[in-house]
């Protein structure tokens, strides 16, 4: 229990600082809402149309690919930390995991999902 005290103190200080600054600024700050201030800022112009439109599908594909390969990299961290203890079993296991994903990458590359146009 003893060595968790600093973390507790740190959390409390962070909490005080975060909530404190919000409370003080809401008390001190002046609130003068006016019609322009509540409107989204677009270089001084009244925004036309809404931003919620059909986005090209490319963005979605890139996002999905990123998540897949990011999590793959995330899994490598615990393996790398325990690399010595896991020995050959861990290595083969990770190899299988990566080969599956590389096959996925080759498929995606072949389908041309990586090109931006």
């Amino acid at each position, binding site marked *: 229990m003893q060595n968790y005290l600093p973390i507790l103190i740190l959390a409390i200080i962070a909490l005080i600082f975060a909530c404190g600054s919000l409370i003080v600024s809401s008390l001190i700050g002046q609130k003068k809402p006016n019609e322009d201030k509540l409107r989204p800022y677009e270089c001084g112009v009244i925004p036309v149309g809404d931003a919620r439109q059909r986005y090209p599908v490319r*963005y979605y594909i890139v996002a999905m690919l990123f998540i897949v390969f990011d999590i793959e990299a995330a899994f490598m961290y615990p393996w790398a930390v325990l690399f010595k203890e896991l020995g050959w079993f861990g290595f083969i296991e990770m190899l299988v995991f990566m080969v599956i994903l590389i096959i996925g990458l080759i498929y995606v590359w072949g389908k041309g999902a990586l090109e931006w146009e």
Partner: protein
Amino acid sequence: MAEEKKYMTLSMGPQHPATHGVLRVILELDGEVVHKAIPVIGHLHRGVEKLGEARTYLQNIVFSDRLDYTSAMNNNLAYCLTVEKLCGVEVPDRAKVIRVIMAELSRIAAHLIWLATHALDIGAMTLYFYCFREREEILDMFEMTSGQRLTPSYIRIGGLMNDLPEGFLERLKKFVDNFDAHVDEYETLLTKNPIWIARTKGVGYISAEDAINWGITGPVLRGSGVKFDFRKATPYSGYENFEFDIPTGTHGDCYDRYLVRLEELRQSNRILKQAIKMLPSGPVNADVPQLVFPEKEKVLNNIESLIMQFKLASGGFTVPKGEVYASVENAKGEFGYYIVSDGSSNPYRMRIKSSCFINLSALPFIVKGSMVADVVAVIGSIDIVLGEIDR
């Protein structure tokens, strides 16, 4: 049922770090790709042409500085050349060479601002501080000769405001000697910089025929490979006695325009070196008493000069009837005045031809189909100044 493609309209509005002033570009975007760009200008329209008709010829010199405020002396030169051609006044040689010195110094200052802001828009912060350090030296020289840094109104009809102060030539020599090293410094920062190349090579392409068809002049035209410069084609104010060459690009993209302007910095420096050597002595103003202000001590001592000074300052001088168009190779391209005079002391019509106005009209053509970030690079590389566009 392919429903009509709805584009997101985004306003790269009057207040935007990358629009170099108060230009507004309405972008119709398909994701990142610009489907259509519509520039909206006029936010700095101060009605200078209308104002010119209500002011005397002497008072209009002041407006010329505030049009392309990055290179003010070039505008003075354009205005004074036009009025001098109208009155048929020839300026002495010393004034011609000093005018060339001032025009080239303000061209260097204009290109330094272009390089600072263009690089800043694309993300290279250090250029901003390097370029403004050199530009400060030029502004000190302007302040030394004319008392004002940015809008000196130093070049007057019939000559100059006054002769060069002592110490100017030494300072100019010092600046000119180590300016080439500074340009190499900029070159090392950007020319082989992979980010800079990625952001500007192949971006904002315009072919030579399109550039001419759009009426583009200046570094943008030379960037597309057209070897054309008004200082060589229609020499004015003694430019024919200087040798300098005209840099041209080959691909007509932002990168080539950058290289052309860097080379122009070196060429202007070369002209300055020649000008220092060949600066003749002699009077600075043409001795046309009804046009040019008498010297200060003459005004204080004898009565005719005092009367002449008073008449010139209050009523101004009359210009014979006629119309003249004269233009100058400004840092951004051809900058010209078309003045119609009806014999009175106010111009009947003072038209200002601005190169940025026409170069900017080609923006929708250049930018169609490129990314939003490229619009920023292209606006920086066309190098627009809103004072000159909106007049």
